[in-house]
């Protein structure tokens, strides 16, 4: 049972020689429930690594508290926190073999030789690395190095696991395989984990909860499907995958639905939680796969570009001044359209998501 809480964390890197410092993390409040994997997602420089490194103990928060199961560890040294970490560069010890790398953390615990050998053997078995035990890290492929890094971390049975973009050095296919393997190991061992990435599809595939960060702040925190479908801001909507974010104006509210004017056409949308009055500016978030082209669609548009992507076809359209992106995943069932074609857009209604106001 391990529950991690970061309470009101701020991190300010002091400036040097008259340069202003960086307020890297602002008022961060996060709770990691036992056994869950939570992802910190956000663009470069938003403070993900800094947050992770504060939990690890490599950085000291400027203010705030870090608790593990209610115990304040804000000032406990790194090597006494019982936290494991998988580094972006793997950080394998280049002068040790795979087995020696894995054994390092156990030697620190002053276990007997036999005990160390047994546990190293078990973990190498679990990670399918037994055949590579005697190799040097330089003699391994990227995926194998990644597995060694994970094995070295989990063998000490840490209470908390941290990952800083562990897959970013792998090519696309391997990245997906390792991602699933990683998740499997984490779930099997049930270790509370914090995972940093700037790849939204990775975040959604692997996490129990996603925390989107921006400029050192939490922008949204929730299960992946929830954050994807109901982003709180246009920033989150755009960061969690492709989105058409279109300006619109409220015409009327009718029970569970909302009439709005979108691209000069009245449309019916689901009614959001917030109170809206006729005339209010709103933005409509539409995922490209949730809308369709149809000859009878109410919004008229012109096809600008057609991009074949294998699993689907992507259309880029222009409707008035607005640019739309629509993906067709059933493109094998009907003939495609061509650039220059005039066509209608059918937004359906169920999946649309409303953001109040004209901007975030």
């Amino acid at each position: 049972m391990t529950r991690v809480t970061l309470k009101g964390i701020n991190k300010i890197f002091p400036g040097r020689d008259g340069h202003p410092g960086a307020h890297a993390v602002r008022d961060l409040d996060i709770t990691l429930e036992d056994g869950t994997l939570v992802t910190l997602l956000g663009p470069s420089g938003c403070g993900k690594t800094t947050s992770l490194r504060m939990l690890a103990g490599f950085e000291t928060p400027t203010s705030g508290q870090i608790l593990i199961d209610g115990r304040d560890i804000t000032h406990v040294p790194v090597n006494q926190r019982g936290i494991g970490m998988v580094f972006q560069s793997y950080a394998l010890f280049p002068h040790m073999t795979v087995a020696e790398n894995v054994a390092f953390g156990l030697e620190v615990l002053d276990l007997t030789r036999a005990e160390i050998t047994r546990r190293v053997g078990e973990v190498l078995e679990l990670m399918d690395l037994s055949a590579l035990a005697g190799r040097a890290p330089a003699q391994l492929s990227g995926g194998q190095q990644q597995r060694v890094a994970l094995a070295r971390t989990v063998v000490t049975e840490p209470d908390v696991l941290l990952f800083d973009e562990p897959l970013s050095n792998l090519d696309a296919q391997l990245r997906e395989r390792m991602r699933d393997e990683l998740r499997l190991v984490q779930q099997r061992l049930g270790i509370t984990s914090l995972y940093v990435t700037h790849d939204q599809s990775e975040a959604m595939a692997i996490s129990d909860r996603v925390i989107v960060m921006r400029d050192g702040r939490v922008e949204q925190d929730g299960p992946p499907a929830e954050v994807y479908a109901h982003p709180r801001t246009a920033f989150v909507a755009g960061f969690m995958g492709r989105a058409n974010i279109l300006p619109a104006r409220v015409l009327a509210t009718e029970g569970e639905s909302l009439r709005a004017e979108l691209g000069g056409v009245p449309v019916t949308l689901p009614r959001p939680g917030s109170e809206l009055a006729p005339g209010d500016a709103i933005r409509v978030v539409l995922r490209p796969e949730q809308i369709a082209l149809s000859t009878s669609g109410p919004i008229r548009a012109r096809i600008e570009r057609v991009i074949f992507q294998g699993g689907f076809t992507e259309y880029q359209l222009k409707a008035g001044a607005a640019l739309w992106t629509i993906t067709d995943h059933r493109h094998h069932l009907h003939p495609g359209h061509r650039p220059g074609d005039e066509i209608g857009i059918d937004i359906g209604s169920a999946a649309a998501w409303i953001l109040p106001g004209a901007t975030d």
Partner: protein
Amino acid sequence: MTTAPIPRPFSTGLRRIAADPWLFGIFMVLSLLTVIFAILPIASVLVQALRATPTETGSGLGILIERLSAPLIWRAFGNTLLLGASSALISTLTGFLLAFAMTRTPMRGKRTVHMIALLPVISPPFVIALAMILLFGRSGLITRELLGIRGANVYGFHSLVFIQSLAFTPLAYLNIRGMLQSMDSALEDAAATLRASQWTVFRRVTLPLALPGIFSSALLVFVKSIEDFGNPLVIGGSFNTLAVEAYSQLIGYFNVPMGALLASLLLVPSLLAFMIHRHWLAKRSYVTVTGKPTAQEIRLTARRVVWPLAAFCYLYVGLVVLLYGTVVWVSLTKIPGIDWSFSTEHYVRAFTDGLAPLGNSLTIALIAAPVATLAGLVIAYIQTRRRFPGAALLRLGTLLSFAAPGTIIGIGYVSVFNTAPLLLTGTITIIIAAIVVKTVQVGIEAGTNQLRQIDPAIEEAAMILGASNGRIFRRVTAPLLRPAIFTAMAYSFTRGLTTLSAIIFLVSANWTLITVTILNQVETLRMGLAAAYSVILIVIVLSALALLQVALGRGAKQR
């Protein structure tokens, strides 16, 4: 997103100390030692150069002007600069040609050329001077035996330049070779695909990219040349340099202020060259260390280029072999110049009467090398991985000690460590301290370069796996620093055995050293014995380097 918070360097500094009290303690001790053994002695020499003797009257400035008006000072100053510039020019040119031939042409016998070209680095600096006297002196093998010239004069500027150029060429060669090797050959290939001729590629790509290396070599040789004491003393004749003049003023005439002034003057060009090197060149190095060796393809195969270059290399190597061969041969002759019959008596003498200085030198080098290495690596670690408040003092002190010529260190030690509580004159400690202070910077530099190439995440990984700082250093950092350990050990051991300029002031009846003994033999014209000592010294250094290689190399293979 950035606001300007109040910087709180003091509290972050305190936190760094609190996180690592042990390391901070070591840091404090090292800083203190640097002040005592580097900054204080140098400062004391500067003070002495200004202090009035009982017979003098007037203010400090008046005395300084009075002293500076002595013509001998300016002659020595001019000579030193002339010598430094000449040697720098010739060594750098030779070194560049060697390095270019080695890295860019398919010349034959590269391994041999490389091994022999390095010989002057590991031998005492004045072995070549000794060989010159044996070959070209009044009763020289070539001048008298071969050409029948009587009264040939080998002493003076021309010999000195020749000897220094030869002795310092390896430094330039190694430096420039490293530069040329780490240059990505894709750059030269890219130029060639743009239809540039080989000459154009050389002139517009290779040479400009190698320029920082070339210039840094010239500065390095310049500093080494003006610091050199043994060669000018042995073969300079009436061509006096600052280092020699300072020595004779101090030891010959007991004129301490004059000696101090000459040594202080020597500090000026040294520091200047060193500062140019650090602050100007460091920013202009185009070669990035990627850590992965770039494959060098040999593209230059035209005979009209390769043959002259190869001939030049062989000529250089032939010269080195001739000079060192002469020393070996003379060490095995009965009375050089008179009785050329074979004899091992010099070696017998060296191993009986002369065993004490040999043992002393070895003892001192064996202590100084690990001390300098450990100190250098720890300082490198502190400076790259921990930013303790006050680190600037340590950096300044170690840089100063490296840039300062041995002469000023030697004179400074004599005056600072002559009274309680720092009464060290005549002890082994003072000699070891001088050697450590003169060589520690190599360990710092090698260690810093190595540490910069080690991903800090590797140490963090060890830390988060629960290892203490001590364990991390022992099990992770130190093994990864092995190449730097080798460099630092090899350098300080070799220098410890062969150095002269600083320790000439520090040796005593109890602690006389092998280099000083060789010098005495040369001055009293017992060339056979001097040659035998030199050969023994070279053999010791070579075996030590081989041992070191095996020791550190085997450690690597265990893995």
